């Protein structure tokens, strides 16, 4: 147990938690927006892949880092638009469309990668986002290293939570979005377009998911390789449930999951790692997340119209 305590007091552990959480935070906020408007977006996994690829490729081709983020976001929004059109006006099954988008986006990213770089065996690297030095805060002993040694994209992730929460709860737009996921008839009866709100939410949400993917190639790993998203999208879907469809709680969930993940990597390198197979450690964040999900989501209230298509003028 002293191993765990040692890990928990190390500044590098906390820095890792924030780093690991960042892509999850972006994508979770994206999914939360979609679901709050009534659309389950299972395209999230593939949209993260396309975001990871598009952002990285832009920089690799000579674009700036922020240009890369913007391109990633636009790529995600494009797939979001496709998802939105298929699920909202056409009312197709959100499960089938979402999984289809994941397959399509993933395959498109891999295909484009091979087209662009047919000969490469070792994934080429780009110069990623650098740690942002905040005068004063970053120089604090321990705290500076633990909390204030992150890239701009991590700070953007936290800002994103605040913005999503503000928009959802403090603006007419957020009110309409929440109502669309709760009772679309209420939105329609107040003269607003349910379709426009839902498609808009899916497009914006998908853009955030793609930025989450871009974080992986542009802030965490600096190169693009296959299977790099590795189920993070699915985790984010669980995090939305864990967070009871509320931004703040979902952020907490992302940090918790990242904490378990950072912990298990470090535990592998301790004495325990000598005796216990490493696969057991890999399981830890998922096991604990499932447990937390069960405990947290029992009282969660699902948006009442989640996955319910809305067709105007139908009897």
């Amino acid at each position: 147990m002293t191993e765990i305590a040692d890990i928990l007091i190390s500044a590098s552990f906390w820095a890792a938690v924030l780093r690991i959480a960042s892509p999850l935070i972006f994508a979770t906020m994206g999914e939360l927006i979609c679901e709050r408007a009534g659309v389950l977006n299972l395209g999230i996994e593939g949209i993260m892949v396309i975001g990871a690829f598009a952002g990285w490729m832009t920089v690799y081709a000579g674009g700036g880092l922020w240009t890369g983020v913007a391109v990633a976001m636009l790529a995600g929004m494009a797939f979001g638009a496709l998802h939105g059109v298929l699920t909202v006006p056409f009312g197709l099954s959100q499960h089938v469309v979402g999984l289809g988008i994941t397959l399509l986006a993933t395959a498109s990213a891999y295909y484009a990668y091979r087209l662009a770089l047919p000969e490469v065996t070792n994934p080429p690297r780009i110069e990623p986002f650098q740690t942002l030095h905040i005068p004063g805060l970053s120089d604090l002993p321990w705290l500076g290293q633990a909390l204030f040694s992150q890239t701009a994209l991590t700070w953007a992730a936290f800002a994103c939570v605040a913005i999503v929460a503000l928009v959802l709860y403090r603006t007419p737009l957020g009110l309409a979005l929440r109502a669309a996921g709760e009772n679309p008839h209420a939105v329609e009866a107040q003269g607003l377009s349910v379709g426009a709100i839902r498609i808009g939410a899916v497009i914006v949400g998908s853009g955030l998911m793609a930025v989450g993917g871009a974080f992986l190639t542009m802030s965490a790993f600096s190169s693009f390789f296959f299977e790099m998203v590795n189920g993070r999208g699915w985790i984010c879907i669980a995090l939305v449930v864990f967070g009871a469809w509320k931004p703040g709680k979902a952020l907490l969930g992302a940090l918790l999951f990242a904490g378990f993940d950072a912990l298990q990597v470090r535990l592998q390198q301790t004495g325990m790692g000598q005796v216990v197979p490493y696969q057991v450690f890999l399981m830890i964040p998922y096991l604990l997340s499932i447990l937390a999900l069960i405990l947290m989501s029992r009282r969660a209230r699902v948006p009442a119209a989640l996955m319910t298509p809305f067709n105007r003028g139908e009897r």
Partner: protein
Amino acid sequence: MTDQDTAQGETVLRLSGITKRFGALTANDAISFSLAKGDVVALLGENGAGKTTLMNILFGHYTADEGMVEVFGQALPPGQPGAALAAGVGMVHQHFTLADNMTVLENVLLGTGSLWSPGLGKPAARRKLQALAQDFGLLVDPDARVAELSVGERQRVEILKALYRDARILILDEPTAVLTPQEADALFLTLRKMVEQGLSVIFISHKLHEVMAISSRVLVLRHGKLVGETATKATDRHQLATLMVGAEIEAPAPAEARPGAVLMRLDGVSTAPQGNRPGLKAVDLELKAGQILGLAGVSGNGQGALADLISGLEAPASGRLEIAGHPVTGWSPRSALLSGIGRIPEDRHRTGTVADFSLTENAVLESYRDAPIARAGWMDWAAARRATEAIITKYDVRCPGPEARIRLLSGGNMQKLILGRVLEAAPRIILANQPVRGLDIGAVTYVQEQLIAARDAGAAVLLISEDLDEILTLSDVIRVISGGRLSPEFARGEKTPAELGQWMAGQGFDHAA
């Protein structure tokens, strides 16, 4: 028309030649009428006559195939609720359009300003809402979540939503269907205040006494056509009923009951609440042979729990349940059936039938395990079909045939099949939960006559209904349910509707206990 308009005030709304088709069905057939300032027009008609469709076209939920709507002389662009709202039309939907997870204020604010404005402006909105609530007698807490409100309060929110947007024309779709008589009176008071302030009201109903009480003019729709238009003063209930149905209809008038032995007894039975639904609280109940016991009450006051208990879906948490003098153990839907309980469920689509099964499959849903439908574990489909054909003939079920999927049938014919399924099993106890809800008058009369016939043949009938008129017409004895508790038993004619309404609102229980 024109002379009348000038006599009553300016014309605020004009519908011309509205036609709407759904596939082969013409829901509205070239309907024209106009509404004057300060008018209260009642739109009267049976279920399926096209009243709601017409109002949905006016409000922009549907687009008419032909015809146009003019509000204050301006043509209304079709299919845009936003345009209708902006023109001063408000609608109180029968199925409330409220988001349950939001507050009253948020529901009212939804869509009122630009979506892109930075804030909600709640303090000013709250003041305006409170002033309106005060003016029109629509008291409700602006910061309460809708999920916590009663049905009556939710309706007030729906009305406030329209008033907040300065509606000049208010459409109310069957507003009293979910209210106690007292709440309905309060609503009528609110409507009068609106009329005093120069609003015009369109009021959809199929209850004649309300139409007579509140409206200044009546429009009658039948099968999508406008078949009558008259000043309320110049007509009476009988004439309106005939217009509405297209034929003279006599309400069933049951003969004096001759109650026999107690077939079912509940003795201090309680059940656990489920979600928003209250459980039963120490309920005593006796169902006697040859008697119809009518259970009045506002929806959601424990009717569901009592129906589930009697149909075997739920067992008592405490207390005794006796059938024909014997206490029951291991209560289940199967044992309820075997005890001779016939069940007409509240929701014929959800629990009464399996929509994509054939009439035959639906007809044997409760008897498929037993001879003659099943022999040695195998279905005898020929026998099932014969039994179904017998029901179709005897109960006049209009259908393409016993192999048709039941979802193709109208509500009335579906209910007749369920009625046949129940009555052919010769039940000793009949649970009739909202047996005529949503049926047209012909089917209503038929179902009610069959229930009376079953009573005369010695069955004990428990009639659960939210329609007090129906309870008063059919019941030999009446009890009222409120918050899971039962009132004492009242003889036919012992209490006036208003007195029963007080019990429905929960008054009187404490003295009785």
